[in-house]
């Protein structure tokens, strides 16, 4: 076939251009380390790389959220631990105060320490996080939640801040002060026992409980009742209207327990005829009121009689409920931090997967690229040499 001299030259130049353009592409790929430098290099891959980058950014943000949540929960946990310590000290002191060997004076000393503890407790309840937000104020983080003017009132709300820790997983990063410090049930959590102020005997109401609390319908009906000792060794259970529901005998020397309608109350000491104890469904009482009541009881100058024992027992039950609330909240906080840690591990795993996938999509295979670079360079050199050879041999050269 005939070939045209200028066309063969143009084609040689064209093919050298193509080799050079291939080399330039390879150069871009090798210097960026990326296979896709323009969407047109791999349209589907480019879109997929964007999706992957988005997932990676999402996971990184979840990790940031978890870090911030852990910081907040850590502070709450610290605060709750301190609160637990304060309440533990209160309990120890209360145990001491219940000891028969105490005098009005020593109880007064104990009460004085308790006043300090109450201050500490208030301080913990009003603690702030690193950003100056009140930890236990619910969502009203700019308002001091516990204001003490005689009694303590809660100025926060019941809000609970959540954090997005993963796709579809939100974890609370706080507990409102109302749940931690305020709305604590009295007594054993189901009902509370209190001795009538006019009791003359030495009978003391001790531990109380509800039998079979899971039964449905519950055995304890949550009503108001009174246990009246009609004699030192006999009692009657009466409902709110004074109707006698139950009666039984009581051994003042050994003590004993009264059981009715699912409620069980242990008594000790010798009641006087006419002494009575009131039973009512648990109410809500804040921990500060419980402390105030303890201090008031300890400061009552009555020589540690049965009345004081009964009061102390009542406060013991309330105090234990408060300690219980703190412990439970700490448990919740721990569980949340646990969940966050797990999610964090999961996010890390996912990030690794996404990054691997992203790398598969957009990163350059260096071995491949470098061997291509070699091949393309050789091809270019070959094209150049061929060109000079072909251009150098012309019939005109021989016509001399």
């Amino acid at each position: 076939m005939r070939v045209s001299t200028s066309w063969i030259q143009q084609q040689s130049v064209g093919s050298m251009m193509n080799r050079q353009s291939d080399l330039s592409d390879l150069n871009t790929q090798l210097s960026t380390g990326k296979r896709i430098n323009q969407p047109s290099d791999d349209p589907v891959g480019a879109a997929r790389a964007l999706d992957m980058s988005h997932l990676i950014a999402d996971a990184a943000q979840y990790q940031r959220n978890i870090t911030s949540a852990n910081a907040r929960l850590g502070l709450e946990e610290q605060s709750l631990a301190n609160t637990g310590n304060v309440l533990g000290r209160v309990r120890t002191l209360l145990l001491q105060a219940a000891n028969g060997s105490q005098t009005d004076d020593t109880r007064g000393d104990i009460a004085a320490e308790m006043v300090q503890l109450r201050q500490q407790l208030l301080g913990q309840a009003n603690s702030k996080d690193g950003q100056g937000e009140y930890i236990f104020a619910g969502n009203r983080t700019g308002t001091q939640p516990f204001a003490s003017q005689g009694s303590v009132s809660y100025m926060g709300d019941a809000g609970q801040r959540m954090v997005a820790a993963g796709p579809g997983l939100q974890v609370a990063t706080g507990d409102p002060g109302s749940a931690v410090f305020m709305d604590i049930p009295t007594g054993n959590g189901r009902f509370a026992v209190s001795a009538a102020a006019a009791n003359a005997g030495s009978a003391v109401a001790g531990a109380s409980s509800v039998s079979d609390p899971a039964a449905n319908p519950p055995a304890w009906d949550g009503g108001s009742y009174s246990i009246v000792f009609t004699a030192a060794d006999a009692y009657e259970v009466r409902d709110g209207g004074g109707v006698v529901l139950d009666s039984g005998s009581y051994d003042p020397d050994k003590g004993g327990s009264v059981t009715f309608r699912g409620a069980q109350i242990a008594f000790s000491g010798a009641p006087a005829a006419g002494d009575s104890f009131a039973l009512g469904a648990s109410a809500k009482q804040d921990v500060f009121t419980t402390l105030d009541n303890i201090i008031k009881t300890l400061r009552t100058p009555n020589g540690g009689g049965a009345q004081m024992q009964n009061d102390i027992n009542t406060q013991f039950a309330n105090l234990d409920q408060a300690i219980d609330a703190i412990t439970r909240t700490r448990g919740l906080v721990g569980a949340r931090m646990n969940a966050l840690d797990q999610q964090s591990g999961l996010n890390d795993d996912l990030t690794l997967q996404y990054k691997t996938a992203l790398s598969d999509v957009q990163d350059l295979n260096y071995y491949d690229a470098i061997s291509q670079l070699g091949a393309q360079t050789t091809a270019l050199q070959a094209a150049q040499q061929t060109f000079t050879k072909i251009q150098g041999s012309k019939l005109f050269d021989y016509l001399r």
Partner: protein
Amino acid sequence: MADMLSTGVSGLLASQIGLSTVSHNVANVNTDGYSRQVVSFGARLPEGQGGFYIGTGVNTVAVQRAYSQFLNSSLWSASSGQGRASAMASLTGQLNNQLSGSTNLQTSLDSFYGAVQDMANAPSDTATRQVLLARAGGLATTFRALSGQFNQLSGQIQQQIGDAVDAINTDTQSIAKLNEKIRSFSSTDGTPPADLLDQRDALVKKLAGEVGISVVPQNDNTISVFAGNGQALVTGTEAHALGTVANVYDATRVEVVGAGSGSVISGRIGGGTLGALLDFRSNVLDPAQIQLGRTAQAMASAFNAQHAQGVDLYGAIGGSFFDVAGPAVQGASGNTGSGTVTASIDDIGALSGKEYLLSYDGSAWSMRDTSGNAVALSGSGTSADPFKAAGLSLVVGGSAGAGDSFRVQPSRDAAAGFKLAIDDPDKIAAAAPFAVSAGAGNTGSASPSVSISDGSDPNLLAPSAIVFSSPTSYSIDGGPAQTFTPGQPIVHNGWSMQLNGAPQAGDSFSLQANSNAQGDNSNALMLGKVANLGLLDGGVTSAGRAYSQLVSQVGGAGALAKDELTTQTAVYNQAMSAQQSVSGVNLDEEAANLVRYQQAYQASAQVISTANSIFNALLGAVRS
């Protein structure tokens, strides 16, 4: 012996013509469109000498160009394809460059939503709120920058269309002039000069690279040239110029018109640079702009909607967070009536990415998309009952004349106007608007969740109490008993309360403004979720995903154009090789011919010299 002399002279002359032609060929070895010329010789009529004939030398019969009509036609069509492919590759390359640069919308979206979540982690912290506003500003800038780049490219294309039309007109005029010359040569000499034909063919090839054409040869050696759709560009000695006019709906958009008819032929031109420009504009750039606009609208409307479900630090319901342009409506320049059309988005999930023409026939309105498919309209077009179609809500006003039409572009320029609507960090609505609580003594399992259904209700934030007198009946604030249907929300004062679980008689729920709750991040968390919320295409495509679609759409067009360029270049090279194998100059061949004619010339000269010496011998014989 005079015969020998004249025969020698004829050989000499013939060789000279051969040598001239070789020289001409060698001189034009690099001339674009040149066809090598070939001399054909014929023996002269012999002289009869009774029983036999004596040859009398050579005649030069013709100098012709080596030419194949078929190969040239293939070359023109390949040139059309190549011109189109190379323009397309360069245009899509430009667009791809714009999307591979630093203005990556996905990155902006990610850092914006990251800031939303950081704000959710510390909603009362002014610093995080400031950062969020800064990132939101960055996102808006990215939207505008991308849109600006697209618009710039669009502007360049208008310019290039004008340039291409000018180039086409220049070429058609030159072709018409060559036609005239060729015709006049043909009528006087019979055959037109090969070099003029070559010039004309080269121009036709150039024209084919600018626009797809078909060429029809005429009897008088002229050619007629038609653009792909049959629009005449050259007939005989007359050139028909193409023109450009503004689009009837959009003065900034250039359309191509035929000279005589004046009708718009933009959509019917294929091939060549002009074909590529028009194709790129309507099939790559327009959809990319629309997709970006759709993304901006979806992003802004979803974020604004969620923002309006919260309250800011001032206790006010969240206002617009982003501003974005709505649908644009342009009346045709030839509208006769005073009719107006206003369009708004009715359902962002139903937006199709198409554009529409709304026209009035004197009694009724009808709509079709820009590819001509009819779109059914519901409603009557009044503001109380607007036309609804394809996610749009259209209200017509004034009195439109029969034949008036309006173009509706739902999303085209939306991204250009994307901006931040608030600049006060305290106006970010991170908190829930209501504090809702279930009564302490509730025995049912219902838990309430409340959203705002009408943010303009003056009593929206007024406290309310809902008391159930039975599982199916409730009253609000001691009002009349109302029936409760499980699963249906309770709507009052502009809010809507959904109960999960079953309420019991005596259960109560109270609702009040979430005052003073600067630490509340409920709405901020919901705002963070908008990032992955399906918004477009019936609620399956998130804003980020829509952007990936845009990237793969543009990347796909770019990859296709690259492939097509490779293919078309191969086709062009093939056609060129074939044509050149017939018409191209080969220097070796010319060198051989040079030697051939030189030898023939020398031989003829020798013949003359011999004739001379014979004649001298004769004279000498006579003299002696």
